């Protein structure tokens, strides 16, 4: 970052302090602003971004301690350096406890001041680098989360690889819990935009007004409570990818605004006029039938075609049940490690239960069931009773449709759940032990099966 891109705001009620520090930092090449009070500083903070605030403790009106707290509550990234007289060092210490970076005592040695600023900038650089690295690691590791060897999942992975190298817009379709965001992240992290962020927007989570502010950001005073300028998600996604989840839920007005942004690649923050230029890739996801929404006029056709250059359909888990054991073991390893539990395997009975469930909540539901089971498990193995399903257990009728076939599967499942304790199983089935033995013999059931 060039020094001229770094803004230092000097807040002090003494003119000579503001003037001399401003000259000092201007000659050092920084962008410099001054404010004679906390109120004036608040206006400046709303006008443009500042990296460092040099803040006097003793000021009429709101003092430096209080203003420091205010800055921390508005923007934690701003580095505050307290300017204090020797007599008020105790107060400066209080400011440090409230999150100020450092303090300097008036008069300050030029060398100390230079070092304090250098340290502050280094801290800021490291924090930003850390954030970028975290984001990058997250992006790079995400593709591993798409697990599966079924032809359906292989097809999804192939499509991700194909579309990632282009800048085409993508719509990802799939039921809730199928992993639409994972696919969006996989596309992003394999694209040339991977070193810039991917920003997610859940379009279904906001009212129209809030979504507008979330996307476009706002200028100070754009609405009640907008006490400082705020970047929107579109601006934060610049050079990267923006992921619109539940795109089918946006209002007609927002559809029009979004179309305009896509066409002009620029927009204005709420309450502002200056155009903000942006360059991002759009990936959207929906569990609605967008074509039907277009046909009924609920979704703009022109926007639909802009967003839908490429479509990826993620199958529901029930359509690729062969991936369930792989996924279940993947989640077992992942959570067992992160929760430092010694659960190492899933019993045959439990795996049969997982494989025979129809998973209305898809992969997300499977992940949650495994996570809960690890918590509940008392040994090294997840067994049937460790499993609890958020929806009523609906076993697929894989054993056949005849009454005998259904009965055989049901008796076998109850025996597994009771760990072949005949009395418990008979009790659960509502029959006596002799009848249960007869059925075990009739269906050829054994503990190993």
């Amino acid at each position, binding site marked *: 970052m060039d020094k001229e891109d770094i803004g230092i705001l000097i807040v002090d009620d003494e003119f000579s302090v503001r003037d*001399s*520090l401003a000259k000092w930092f201007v000659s050092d090449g920084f962008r410099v602003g001054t404010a004679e009070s906390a109120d004036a500083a608040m206006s400046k903070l709303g006008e443009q971004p500042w990296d460092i605030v040099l803040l006097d403790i003793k000021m009429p009106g709101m003092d430096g301690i209080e203003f420091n707290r205010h800055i921390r509550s508005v923007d934690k990234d701003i580095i505050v350096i307290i*300017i204090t007289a020797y007599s008020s060092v105790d107060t400066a210490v209080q400011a440090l406890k409230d999150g100020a970076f450092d303090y300097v005592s008036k*008069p300050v*040695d030029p060398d100390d001041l230079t070092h304090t600023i250098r340290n502050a900038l280094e801290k800021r650089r490291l924090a930003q680098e850390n954030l970028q690295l975290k984001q990058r690691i997250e992006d790079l590791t995400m593709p591993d989360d798409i697990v599966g060897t079924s032809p359906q999942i292989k097809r999804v992975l192939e499509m991700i690889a194909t579309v990632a190298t282009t800048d085409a817009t993508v719509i990802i379709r799939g039921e809730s819990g199928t992993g639409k965001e994972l696919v969006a992240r996989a596309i992003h992290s394999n694209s040339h935009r991977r070193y810039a962020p991917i920003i997610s927007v859940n379009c279904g989570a906001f009212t129209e007004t809030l979504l507008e502010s979330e996307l476009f950001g706002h200028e100070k005073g754009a609405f009640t409570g907008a006490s400082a300028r705020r970047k929107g998600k579109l601006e934060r996604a610049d050079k990267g990818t923006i992921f619109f989840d539940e795109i089918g839920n946006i209002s007609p007005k927002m559809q029009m605004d979004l179309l305009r942004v896509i066409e002009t690649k620029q927009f204005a923050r709420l309450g502002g006029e200056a155009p903000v230029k942006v360059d991002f890739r759009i990936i959207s996801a929906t569990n609605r039938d967008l074509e039907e929404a277009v046909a009924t006029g609920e979704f703009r056709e022109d926007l639909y075609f802009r967003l839908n250059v490429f479509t990826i359909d993620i199958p529901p888990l029930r359509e690729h049940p062969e991936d369930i054991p792989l996924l279940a073991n993947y989640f077992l390893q992942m959570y067992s490690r992160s929760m430092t539990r010694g659960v190492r395997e899933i019993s045959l009975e439990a795996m049969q239960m997982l494989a025979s469930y129809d998973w209305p909540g898809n992969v997300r539901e499977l992940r949650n069931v495994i996570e809960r089971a690890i918590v509940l498990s008392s040994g090294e193995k997840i067994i049937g009773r460790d499993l609890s399903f958020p929806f009523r257990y609906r076993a697929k009728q894989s054993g056949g449709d005849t009454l005998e076939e259904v009965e055989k599967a049901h008796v076998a499942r109850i025996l597994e759940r009771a760990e072949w304790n005949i009395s418990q199983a008979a009790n659960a089935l509502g029959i006596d032990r002799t009848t249960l033995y007869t059925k075990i013999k009739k269906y050829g059931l054994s503990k190993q099966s």
Partner: protein
Amino acid sequence: MKSSKLYVVPIRLSDNSLLDPLLTYLAHSFRLETEVLWRELDLASTHNAERDQYHSTAILAQIIANPPDDAFRMLGVAGVDIFVPVLTFLFGEAQFKGLGALISTFRLRNEFYGNAPDMQLFQERVLKEAIHELGHTYGLVHCNYPGCVMNSSTDVEDVDEKNVLFCRVCAGIVEQGSPH
């Protein structure tokens, strides 16, 4: 009259012998005609008894008041210790892209640090600080190019580490700001 001259204003210097080489070198560095301008300044009004230092900004204001018609730049060279209220001391102060600059020789002498006098080193330091502060009047900011005279100096060791010359980029900016 076209302004083209660099006036050097001596302020309570214990030894005026450094003026001649300073004027010669500044004339060469900035390609300006240089001349000493003797001015009566009210230093007492800029003195802070508690700190026993002189307010730099106030002195600078007096230096540039009523400049000669042909003044392109005005440089004060003070033998006293200077300060601004928020800093403990200054080697110099300049008006960014402005007319005037001021340097203090007080902390440039070896004796100030308890070392043996070294006249040649002292003159070099004075020259570096003079060029540096005048550089700010051309709109130059502190430069990170190793050795450039516009490197920031917050102690005398920093002053010694840099050269008396501008780097090529800074020299280009000074050239553009030249009256010729």
